[in-house]
């Protein structure tokens, strides 16, 4: 099957070889003027039974010889060439209409259809890719929005936690401060009470030693307390 086109292409090459072999450029014809005159004069001599002198002076022969100078008109077509040329064109036209042209046209249309289908396919693939891309971008957008929302939410939560922690810390600190103050007040009161009783005891002991009297302890105590309160009120 693959050899058929090669065989077909060998045909014009073979015809070229035949053409060169049978009718090369050197085989151009066209009778020369001299050849024509010689041939016609020989015919005239033969017609005159070998009388060269008679043939040479015959006006009819001379006119025949002069015709050898007339070149054929190159513009007038030859009948055989019209027949072969017209026939060759007709045969080629029939071959082209029936076989050659439809085959080539069919091959071209098949290729055009194939390219068109490939382009349509490529367009469809492009549309699909664009659709996938749009979908992907939409999803990416959604993911970004979601992430942003989650970050905002987390930030809000963190802020809330921070505020709670601060509030709790502040409350704890206030509690601690209150407890510390209360403890401090209690310790202070305790210290004052301890100091008062210590001072009272010291003062009582000292007074007892100094005065050497048997004053009632309760009376002395009352006196001392009254003194201390007086002193405390004076100090502010």
């Amino acid at each position, binding site marked *: 099957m693959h050899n058929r086109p090669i065989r077909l292409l060998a045909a014009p090459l073979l015809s070229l070889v035949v053409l060169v072999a049978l009718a090369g450029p050197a085989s151009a014809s066209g009778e020369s003027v001299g050849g024509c005159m010689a041939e016609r004069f020989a015919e005239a001599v033969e017609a005159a039974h070998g009388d060269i002198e008679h043939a040479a002076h015959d006006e009819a022969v001379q006119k025949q010889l002069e015709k050898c100078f007339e070149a054929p008109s190159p513009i007038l077509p030859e009948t055989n060439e019209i027949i072969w040329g017209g026939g060759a064109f007709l045969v080629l036209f029939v071959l082209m209409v029936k076989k050659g*042209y439809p085959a080539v046209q069919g091959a071209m249309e098949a290729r055009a259809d194939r390219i068109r289908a490939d382009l349509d396919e490529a367009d469809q693939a492009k549309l699909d890719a664009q659709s996938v891309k749009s979908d992907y971008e939409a999803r990416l957008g959604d993911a970004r929005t979601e992430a942003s929302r989650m970050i905002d939410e987390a930030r809000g939560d963190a802020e809330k936690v921070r505020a709670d922690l601060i509030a709790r810390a502040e409350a704890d600190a206030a509690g601690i401060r209150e407890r510390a103050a209360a403890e401090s007040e209690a310790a202070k009161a305790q210290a004052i009470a301890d100091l008062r009783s210590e001072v009272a005891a010291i003062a009582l002991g000292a007074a007892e030693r100094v005065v050497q009297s048997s004053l009632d302890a309760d009376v002395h105590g009352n006196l001392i307390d009254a003194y201390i309160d007086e002193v405390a009120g004076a100090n502010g």
Partner: protein
Amino acid sequence: MNVLALDFPPVSHLFEWPAILFDGTIYAVNKTVLIYLFAVVATAAIFLAAGRRSAPLVPAGVQHIAESGVTFVEQSIVMETIGPEGRKFMPFLTTMFFFILFSNITEVIPGIQFPANSRMAVPITLALVVWVIYNFVGIRSQGLGGYLKNSLFPPGVPKALYLIVTPIELVSTFVVRPFSLAIRLWANMVAGHLLLVTFAVLTAALWGAMPPTAIAPFAMLILMTGFEILVSVLQAFIFTILTAVYIGGSMHPAH
């Protein structure tokens, strides 16, 4: 012909060829006929070989030649002159283009060196076929009356000018056109062949007498050979596009 000691062959020696087969009959086969047959074989072989191959994405070889030719005829000739409805003439115009091209290009093929269209047979035959076709298309498209009216009395021309225009159009459209078409192709190929022969003969003669002086005509011979390749293609294109123009003009008189 002897000019300045150069022996130039007579014109009959350049364009007339002896019969190879059927000598003396109207079926005589000579070199010109063989070139026509070569044009048929070459065109048919290229298109049949191209059509047999499966269509690859990128055409190559003969397929490329055939498809380029078809695309060229379609896009540069038919679509430019007739329009989409001219596609039905594609097989005819494609056949014509390749047949003329291969009949011309033998002018530069070594060993052949003769353009078959430098003989009047095919140019005049094809021109007459074209004449029949475009007149038939005109009558079929517009009717006989409409076609004659639009051809002889072109629309848009002041009525007074019809006195001049109508006889000119009559002669131009129905008489001169096929002959101008044929003679244009024939004369171009004759002139090209004469030029190549002139420089070839001059080169040969000077080479024999004074070899260095042969360089100039030999350079011209090479240059003209390249030019004749261009002329071969161009004349095939011109003949085909004029055919399409005439057919298009018959189908669309307004344009």
